[in-house]
């Protein structure tokens, strides 16, 4: 030990304040001492071990969810009653670590990785699902500016339960699923999140708090530096969420339901509003195997009038009618069929713009049209 002969004071100075009671630490191996960390060692161990436990229990919860689904006979939805049990661990960790900001997200990510590496059947997606649950809890707590009130924690857990349904809907299902069905599943998940994921861990935590099991841990107060950073992050997130909300409202207002974008190979691309053009009334019958409708009168704007206003660049062209996202269903017609033909009109039916293609099969009666694109390919 070449440094063993040095005095503790000298060592302490040379290594940036390393403890003087460890005289064998070589200054050349130590760069500098770490500042007071945000997460204490006990916080990290709590997050790690309970995330691990959460990962193990998720497998059992999966079994129970599958059993419930098979019992109810619906493959989708029954299991959502237990969605809150996945959130249980995140909230429990949050309470154990003195309600620190960032704990639930960290625990969510870690739990996701544990489940991923232990071979969860959802694969990579389990990281996304688990992380998003943690993130939602964080965001709700930030928005409510309170991490102390148990009722807010329970509501946050409810939203985390809901996020599971929303993410699966975004990833594997499309907008065709009836809204009422989705809303029902969403409400089940929210209630499950709030009770099993929120109120249940809170009650268990208070049970354990009375016992001596948690007495050994003396939480330190957060340093002013971290408190300032958390405040800044909190304000930034609120500003971002507000901006996103305003942008979404502005987008929805601009993308008016009763308008269609006329684009493509035209000299005059424009936004079509049904009220800007003269209307005609035609009689048409919707032929369909599933939802046939008897002949009735429809009032709207002829398609050829809309296209003439856009001034197509070519004499013959294709007309591609696309539904709004996320459906993106489309139908195509040849200009020779549509030109001067009043049997094709765009009509406002039940508040949605729809193509009335008289004498055509129901599958051509595209509804909720978002764009009409004039293409060079005519067929």
């Amino acid at each position: 030990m070449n440094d063993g002969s040095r005095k503790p004071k000298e060592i302490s100075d040379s290594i940036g304040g390393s403890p003087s009671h460890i005289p064998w630490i070589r200054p050349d191996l130590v760069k500098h001492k770490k500042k007071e960390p945000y997460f204490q060692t006990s916080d990290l161990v709590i997050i790690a071990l309970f995330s691990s436990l959460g990962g193990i229990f998720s497998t059992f919860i999966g079994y129970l969810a599958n059993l419930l689904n098979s019992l109810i006979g619906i493959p989708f939805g029954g299991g959502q009653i237990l969605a809150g049990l996945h959130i249980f661990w995140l909230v429990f960790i949050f309470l154990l670590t003195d309600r620190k900001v960032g704990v639930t997200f960290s625990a969510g990510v870690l739990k996701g990785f544990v489940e991923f590496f232990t071979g969860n059947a959802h694969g990579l997606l389990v990281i996304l699902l688990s992380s998003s649950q943690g993130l939602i809890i964080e965001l709700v707590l930030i928005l409510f500016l309170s991490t102390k009130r148990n009722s807010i924690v329970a509501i946050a857990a409810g939203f985390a339960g809901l996020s599971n349904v929303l993410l699966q809907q975004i990833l594997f299902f499309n907008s065709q699923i009836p809204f009422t069905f989705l809303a029902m599943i969403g409400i089940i998940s929210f209630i499950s999140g709030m009770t099993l994921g929120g109120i249940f861990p809170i009650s268990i935590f208070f049970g354990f708090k009375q016992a001596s099991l948690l007495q050994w841990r003396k939480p330190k107060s957060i340093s002013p530096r971290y408190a300032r950073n958390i405040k800044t992050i909190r304000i930034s997130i609120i500003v971002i969420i507000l901006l996103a909300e305003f942008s979404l409202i502005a987008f929805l207002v601009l993308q008016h339901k009763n308008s269609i974008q006329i684009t493509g190979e035209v000299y005059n691309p424009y936004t079509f509003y049904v009220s800007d053009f003269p209307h005609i009334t035609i009689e048409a019958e919707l032929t369909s195997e599933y939802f046939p409708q008897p002949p009735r009168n429809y009032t709207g704007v002829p398609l050829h009038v809309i296209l003439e206003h856009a001034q197509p660049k070519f004499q013959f062209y294709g007309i591609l009618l696309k539904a709004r996202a996320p459906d993106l269903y489309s139908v195509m017609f040849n200009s020779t069929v549509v030109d001067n033909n009043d049997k094709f009109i765009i009509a406002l039916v039940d508040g949605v713009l729809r193509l009335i293609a008289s004498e055509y099969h129901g599958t051509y009666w595209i509804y909720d049209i978002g764009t009409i694109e004039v293409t060079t390919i005519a067929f």
Partner: protein
Amino acid sequence: MSGAVKISRELIDVKLEASSNATNPVIKFIAIIAIAVYYFMITDLYRMYLLIFAILIYYNFKALPYQVAKPKYRFLIIFSLLIVIVQLAASRQGDLVFFLIPKIFNLGPFFPIYQKGLFYAILFVGRFWGVITISWVFIDSTNPFDFAQSLTNLKVPYRLAYSLSLALRFTPVLNNEITVIRNAQQTRGLNSTPNSIKGTYNLLKFTLFPIISSTLNRIKDITLSMEGRAFGLYVDRTPLKEMPLQILDIIQLFVLILLLMLLLMF
């Protein structure tokens, strides 16, 4: 240097060399995320299913035989059926392809299947299978502890990366503890096997409290042990095994992303 020390030193060198030859786990992880994103962007069913089948064949021949992976396939099939049912029932656009229940005498036909519904069903099932199969390949070819270590090498604070190692290291320990608790319950006549509703309910109800108590005790021991060893005192931590990020790894990742982009465009 004595013979024993020399041999062990050589063994360590061989292990280090082997690990340095393997692709960096974080790069591998980014690669599977890129492939997963590709699955969510692609609408060409042929390309999608070709890639899935290639990965499945690789997985079953190189990694695990079918019997071992059977429970995974069971879940995959059930969830896929769910996606198919929902898509076929919900999407009513496009041409009518066929009726699920044909006309029998004067009854039916029922459940029409439309072109768009069929397309969505195959597309979403493909997405799901794609993400899952690529995840299997990653898990079977990656040591999770190497993954945690390589995060530290990529300047992720080692306190956070160590949490992942800790969580993974204690997963079998906690799993074993749950088994011990369940065995103890079963010797007293409590059904806690997760093959019935009651059994799973019992498992959750009667195992939760003992395992939380035991884990809290364990947390205390580990924390005191770590703090006793001054864990987290310094910025750097000397790893047992280096997982450096090599230029070849970055090139491989770049080539993969380029390839996926080309597949998307053409």
